[in-house]
């Protein structure tokens, strides 16, 4: 009896937590604090967490399928996979930003020089190239 009260309580907490989390992510995307492409993974995993907290036997089913003896370990695995995927997405995004950033810095450098040479050319003859 006491067991049932406890498992019922933890399920309610899990569902409320998952809904709040999903709502938080959706709100961030809605307010354009997170771009859709970076929000997608978060939403997918938030929905997954919600599904697991509603459909409790689901975790057991998945654990048996994967040959995991201890069902909560399957949940930890899911968490780690989620964090890894999102972090990898970050690494890709940062690398792409770094490349674009480099190109912009190079262009600005070249343009600044050309601008200086052009305005300099008006005053004291041609630049040395």
């Amino acid at each position: 009896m006491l067991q049932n009260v406890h498992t019922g309580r933890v399920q309610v907490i899990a569902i409320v937590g998952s809904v709040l989390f999903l709502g938080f992510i959706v709100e961030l995307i809605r307010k354009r604090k997170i771009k859709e492409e970076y929000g997608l993974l978060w939403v997918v995993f938030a929905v997954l967490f919600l599904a697991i907290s509603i459909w409790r036997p689901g975790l057991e089913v998945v654990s048996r399928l994967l040959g995991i003896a201890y069902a909560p370990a399957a949940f930890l695995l899911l968490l780690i996979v989620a964090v890894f995927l999102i972090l990898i997405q970050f690494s890709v995004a940062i690398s792409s930003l770094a490349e674009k950033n480099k190109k912009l810095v190079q262009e600005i450098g070249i343009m600044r020089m050309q601008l200086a040479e052009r305005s300099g050319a008006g005053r004291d003859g041609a630049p040395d190239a």
Partner: protein
Amino acid sequence: MRVLFIVPAYNEAASIAQVVASLHEQHAVADVLVVDDGSTDGTGAVAEKTGQARVIRLPVNLGIGGAVQTGFKLACREGYDAAVQFDGDGQHLASEIDSLLAPLASDQADVVIGSRFGREGRGFRSTRARQLGIKFFAMVNSLLIGQRISDNTSGFRAYNAPALRFLTDYYPVDYPEPEAVILLGKNGFRLREVPVRMRARQGGVSSIRGVRSVYYMMKVFLGILMGTLRPKVRRG
């Protein structure tokens, strides 16, 4: 042959004027370009004051590869036939540029690397750890592209126009030299090494020291491995 001398410089105010002057006097026919890689010691201003160099001042520090690549881009856009990378710290000797350019002029190579380890074994000796690192890259790179390049870390290099066009799109940002050898070798560019004399640096400190040298070795090694795994770039 229109040649651009590309001098990457990060906080080399102490030596840059001398470097520019030596390039200017040795090769009055070529243009000197100093790429100030976001220096905080006024390197760019010192270089401009000489009146003998064009100066690109990068608004932030990109790393040597990013700075040199800026020079490659300018060289391509302005139609130079060749470019020579020449370090701003005074290690390289302007008098050696002719021997670097000769294989390009006679179209025997696309890329010429000035090597500290010539037949005559001349020039200064660096630290033992550094020599070990240089040997290691020589071994790895020689294995991977089937051509022996003894001084993969040398930043004293000459490139012809096709090589420049290629490097405009593909050039590592930090510690680019050993990776660039693989990149160029794999993509069918003819590499040539010529022995040159080099001096100990005239001012400033090397960027590769302490913990950073460990990062350097690992980053460059990863870059080299990845370079060999990537498919050949198709060139037009």
